[in-house]
């Protein structure tokens, strides 16, 4: 079982969601996050005072998947979220020990 965490540009959320749905992924958790990498921040000016905004808004998508779907999902996310410009984001993949569905108490692959 793998967990995929993808940090993407906010306006790409819908494309990524559609791409993941198409390969049969049924659930994900989406969070609005802020951060910076190579893209760095920008400057805002209010009445002549300049403020440097280091943290840019991004979207983090988390989804836990059976091992056989993970590689496919990563490719789908990359394809959908890419603009080719700096700041497109990152995808992290990690191993998950187990998962439980609270309602039915089933666990393992059938729970995700």
């Amino acid at each position: 079982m793998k967990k995929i965490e993808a940090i993407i540009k906010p306006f790409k959320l819908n494309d990524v969601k559609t791409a993941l749905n198409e390969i049969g992924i049924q659930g994900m958790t989406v969070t609005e996050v802020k951060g910076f990498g190579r893209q760095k921040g920008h400057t805002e000016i209010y009445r002549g005072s300049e403020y440097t905004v280091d943290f840019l808004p991004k979207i983090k998508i988390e989804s836990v998947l059976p091992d056989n779907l993970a590689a496919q999902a990563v490719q789908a996310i990359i394809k959908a979220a890419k603009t080719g410009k700096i700041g497109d984001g990152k995808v992290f993949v990690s191993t998950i020990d187990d998962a439980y569905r609270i309602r039915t108490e089933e666990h393992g692959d059938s729970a995700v």
Partner: protein
Amino acid sequence: MNSIRHFAKSVRLLLLPTIACVLFGLVATSAHAGAIAPSVEERLAKLEAASQSATPAINTGDNAWLLASCALVLMMTAPGLILFYGGLVCSKNVLSTMMHSLVLMGLVSMLWMLFGYSMAFAPGNAFVGNPLTYFLLKGVGGEPNADYSATVPQESFMLFQMMFAIITPALISGAVAERIRFKAYVLFTLLWVTVVYFPLCHMAWGKGGYFNWALGGKIPVLDFAGGTVVHISSGVSALVCAIVLGRRSGYPQEPMMPHNVVLSLIGAGLLWVGWFGFNGGSALGAGTLATSAFAATHFSAAAAALSWAATEWLHKGRPSVLGAASGMVAGLATVTPASGFVSVPSAFCIGLAAGVVCYFAVTKLKARFGYDDSLDVFGVHGIGSMTGMLMLGFLASAAVNPAIASTFHANGVAVSLAGGTAQFFNQAIAVVFTSVFAGGASFILLKLVDAVVGLRVHVEDEDAGLDLTQHGERAYTE
């Protein structure tokens, strides 16, 4: 048993204040009745005088416009200024900033009823009116006060002027936002309107006031709707407040961005609309002078919005929306003394100047001296209105307002106050006097309030925000 005791307690809590208020009302009313119920002889004499004099009776058109203007000017405070200022502060200080305007609608109204109107407009000396003449608004009713406005009830005039007294100290709140203790704010504004506003109002507009060009003043100063009384007095006092209070903790290293520019834009829009009442209403009638003041107001705001945005575009590379809105307000504050005395093209020029001058006041001047006038009250209202007062010295036109050609007399000879160096110097004297008087008095009052209750909140409270620490609320709960 317990519940009965609780019930009795609640009844006491509700009834006692009610009874006290009713008694106060009765006493105040009987004082009124005693003062205004005239004897038969007095009534006959009045009737005779009325039938012989040419004084027009109440003009319903004038009264309608003045009452509408009252409402417009109050709208400038709430929700105009409340939203304008509320949007400019951090999200932890929104409610406290709004409360600074809101509480004055209560406090200043109370003072105005007690002695404020009387100090401003009752007969007195050149500097202040007798606070007892209209104490509790005694004798201020349906009869016009011919000195000020012969065609509307004096009560309408009193209401209109009260709205100005409310918004003036509210303007100052922008300089003390995000760090003043609420108790200190209340005490300071109560003292400030009494010591600074009421006398300045009397000097500019009260009969026999030192600067009143139309009603027997010594130095004829043109100030149609409150360049000195409202904007310079609040602007300079705001500067003194910002210096005495000190900077917000973290300023200017930490970012203190406006938390919601949209609120500020709605507020700025309401201010523009409300200003038609502020300046247009200051004609105290619904005639051509009101139209002229209305027009000057509009064109100055339009010009200043353009010139601020253009200056910022050239200077910083982008025209910000907040900049255009700030320009609007600067144009309105700047044309306030001049409306009613200048032509539309003159007003447009005043607006153009306002946008550029005020832009550099809030960007360069503030940075150069390092004071933390949080919401730029001095830069926009103080500097703006000084510019307007001085430009008016050259641009005042007897074609726009024929009264300025021959109303003022020196040594029995009529003196024209139309634009020129002579009038420029008169205007300059009023600017300097108002600045020194308002600034000096504010300094003393701030020191006094600091000694009595302490001006600033603790730094931890400032970190947590004034909404929570001063009022026990948050603007945005999730």
